């Protein structure tokens, strides 16, 4: 079970907002589109400007393809608690992210789901996690203001 699903969807996580870590994602990705893909990690590279995950995924024809996913800078990932061996060869992951603008086997991840169901963020600018925190603080602020 794997493969790629290109999904054009709307919603809080899909809004092109805020400031990525270093570069505008439009450099290499379709910022208003999202895809999901499942694969097996072959290498995790703890580098700047963006950490990278190399992985293999099976396409719709059943053939294995090599892919690369980009996330936040390793500096910001470390600050968020990631380690340089956060992902290991053989780890099976599901990625939600932005597809390549050139059709390459590239994805800019927003969220990664591990085999045990744990969702880790770590995407460019960690916007997904940040938005959840801001949403919670906003709700708290509105409740306090209403009291």
């Amino acid at each position, binding site marked *: 079970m794997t493969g790629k699903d290109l999904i054009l969807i709307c919603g809080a996580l899909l809004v092109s907002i805020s400031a990525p*870590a270093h570069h505008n994602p439009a450099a290499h990705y379709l910022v208003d589109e999202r895809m999901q893909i499942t694969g097996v990690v072959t290498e995790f590279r703890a580098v700047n400007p963006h950490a990278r995950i190399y992985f293999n995924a099976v396409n719709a024809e059943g053939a294995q393809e090599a892919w690369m996913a980009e996330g936040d800078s390793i500096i910001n990932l470390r*600050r968020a608690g990631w380690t340089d061996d956060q992902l290991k060869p053989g780890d099976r992951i599901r990625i939600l992210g932005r597809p390549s603008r050139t059709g390459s086997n590239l994805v800019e991840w927003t969220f990664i789901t591990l085999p045990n169901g744990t969702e880790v963020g770590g995407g460019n600018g960690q916007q997904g996690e940040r938005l959840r925190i801001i949403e919670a603080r906003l709700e708290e602020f509105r409740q306090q203001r209403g009291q």
Partner: protein
Amino acid sequence: MKIVVNPIRALSIRAALGRFHRLILAGAAIAVSCLGCLTLGVRFSEAQEVLPSAFEGIWSTTVTAITHPDWTIDDLFACNCTRETYEYLDQLLHDPANDHLSAADIQQAIRGRNLAAIEGLFTETAKEYALTYDHADDPSIQCEYFGAFRTVLHNDPILIEQYEDHISIKGEDMTSDRIIYTDGRSHPENETPSPLGHSIGWYEGSTLVVETINVSANIAEDNLPIHNSDEASSIERYTRSEDGSRLHMEFTLIDPVMFNEPLVLERTRLLTPEVDLLDAPCESISGEF
């Protein structure tokens, strides 16, 4: 079209402008300072005597310290925003009529308003450039360090160290370390523009003022987006809150090639002594795989 202004032409223009250019800078600094330092409901000190180490420390933005408990709700939506954008944010957050808006709605609205405010100041050259610029041409993707303005406007933590005759501002990975001379020297004359340009600083009450000139054409902020020509100069005004925990920055970009008026952006950082500046190798990105 690239913003590659002929250095010879730029230098001759700068030489011709001479004192007039300085007057523009001084006028812009005075004008923007009149906007006040009462920002986001937090009081910033203008009248106190500055302490020798008033600005020292590691200062973070919400991008790298989002969970810090001292951020206000306004801070969490802040960006490199114009004053008009912050006023709009204030309405969105504090008027209960807007309570149907999600955080994502507000972020998107703020971003749109900020972009409109910035693009409203674009010259024809800037408009033309924006239409043809490709984000894939960003040189930092190939691990080239940021220039002065992008370093100032970037999200990563900064370490400020104050010395008798200069101030050092260090950042992380793609940003460039800056030296700001505070020994009373003037800018060098007829110097070729460089990515970091030349910065001098002085104190006005408890505000640190930094003037930077001779910056080469570059990306000043890629997400807004802002690009500068090599005729650009800037004024940064840093003010610390009365309790010392917050650093408010007002950044004025004066660039007659790209902006019809000085562009003024504001942002607040928190003092985060628990944060360390980190480093890691850079590997360029091709966009292909």
